[in-house]
């Protein structure tokens, strides 16, 4: 695969969940290496569904989904396990395993692969260190706040060093400070680790943070900067869904200047 080939390619995807109206109606887009695609839209517009299809948790009724050039719509559950190793997903409500500690939750993927215990411990600590939650390693999810759960979920998704990260409203219901922390983690993954991402949200403040800020690595510390007058430094593009269709695709600058009535109302 060359660097110009998309990491994720969605081609004419249609998905029904009962009823006559499709949840996704002929959706097509591509995400390139190191890019973060922000999917915005009202509730029920098909945003979360597209993430489930990319991960192979569900299959489209029509169309194709390519992950690094491989059509995953033809794969069975066993074959999908190999594809899912490349993808990390942060679920809307964290979806941490209640009966497992933070350590066991984060280490889950590595335990399943049967990796060495010492290596697992080191990787778990590294991943929890990235989200700033090393101290919570022995705790159970019920002992964590909403924001901490999301950060553990990010650490769990990151543990296998996936090339693709999917975020399903990771800041929903969180206070601005915690949301900011999570956004910074996502920006750092995009800019420092070149992780390709799809970020689903309806919180425009978070979406614009991702689209206008970028991270640099210096003095053994990650620094965050605003684009200011420079445009399109942050490797992020917007997709707007409406009733299962894409009604906008482009950078934040174009989105803000859009004359479309629906987009204007959404951004207001």
């Amino acid at each position, binding site marked *: 695969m060359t660097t110009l080939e998309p990491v994720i390619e969605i081609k004419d995807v249609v998905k029904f969940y009962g009823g006559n109206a499709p949840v996704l109606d002929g959706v097509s887009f591509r995400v390139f290496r190191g890019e973060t695609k922000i999917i915005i839209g009202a509730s029920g517009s098909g945003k979360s569904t597209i993430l489930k299809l990319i991960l192979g948790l569900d299959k489209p009724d029509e169309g194709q989904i390519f992950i690094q050039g491989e059509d995953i719509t033809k794969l069975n559950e066993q074959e999908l*396990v190999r594809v*899912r190793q490349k993808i990390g*997903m942060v*679920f809307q409500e964290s*979806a941490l*395993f*209640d009966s497992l500690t933070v350590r066991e939750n984060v280490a889950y993927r590595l335990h*399943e692969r049967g990796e060495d215990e010492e290596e697992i411990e080191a990787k778990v600590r590294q991943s929890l260190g990235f989200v700033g939650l090393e101290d919570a390693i022995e705790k159970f999810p019920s002992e964590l706040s909403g924001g901490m759960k999301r950060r553990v979920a990010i650490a*769990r998704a990151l543990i296998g060093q996936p090339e693709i990260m999917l975020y399903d409203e990771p800041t929903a219901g969180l206070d601005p400070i915690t949301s900011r922390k999570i956004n910074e983690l996502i920006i750092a993954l995009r800019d420092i680790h070149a992780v390709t991402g799809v970020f689903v949200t309806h919180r425009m403040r978070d979406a614009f943070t991702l689209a206008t800020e970028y991270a640099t690595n210096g003095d053994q510390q990650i620094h965050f900067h605003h684009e200011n007058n420079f445009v399109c430094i942050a490797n992020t593009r917007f997709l707007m869904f409406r009733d299962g269709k894409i009604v906008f695709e482009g950078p934040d600058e174009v989105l803000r200047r859009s004359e479309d009535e629906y987009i204007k109302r959404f951004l207001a």
Partner: protein
Amino acid sequence: MPLSPKAAVKEVQEFSYLVAKAFASVFRRPYYVRDILTQMDLIGVGSLSVIILTGFFTGAVLTLQTSKTLSTFGAVGLIGQLVALSLVRELGPVLASLMVAGRVGSGIASELGSMLVTEQINAMRALGTDPIKKLVVPRILATVAMLPVLTIVADSTGIIGGLTIAVFVLRISSNLYLSRAWDGLSYMDLFGGLLKPLVFGAIVSVVGCRCGLRTYGGTQGVGRSTTQAVVASSIMILVFNLILTRIILVYTR
């Protein structure tokens, strides 16, 4: 809410698919031995107290009730045989299974249902695990393995319950009670009495898993699934008990 014929056929199809997939998964790696042992502990050891109490009081009441009838024929001495046969052939397997359906089947449905509505099952799949292998197979194997053991416990404590009443209320010697109980049982009775909980164990666990994995509608849906699991598995236990009893009687004549 009554099921439409189409929905009923789909449900049977989904149920059969789950059974087939779980059966195929038993023989494929990875084997979650630790999960199986944990479930055996939760299901088997965790149900011991309720099974002991159920067995003991059932045996005691059975002795009290039947002693009156037997005494009219002057046959109270046969009470040990009657209690042992009733418990080993019917009451032990059925009551133990019904109690496990209430305790374990509901637990399985609510646990899997909660995991489903909070997207933990999807998270598991996203992390490369087959939920059927990780969650369903250990629960089925553990229930099928532990229910015969619990039935033996229910049978034994039932006979002890009957013995307690026989000795202290009916004033029958313990030797007579126990020797009648022992002589009254054949190996075929024991075989039939242990075959039933194997089938019932599969019913309780598969119905619990299926109800849990078809949960929809948030926490309210979890409650609904739990109730459905207990009701459906209890009825299936009673229906299959009739079928199995008929088969066992035909082949042990």
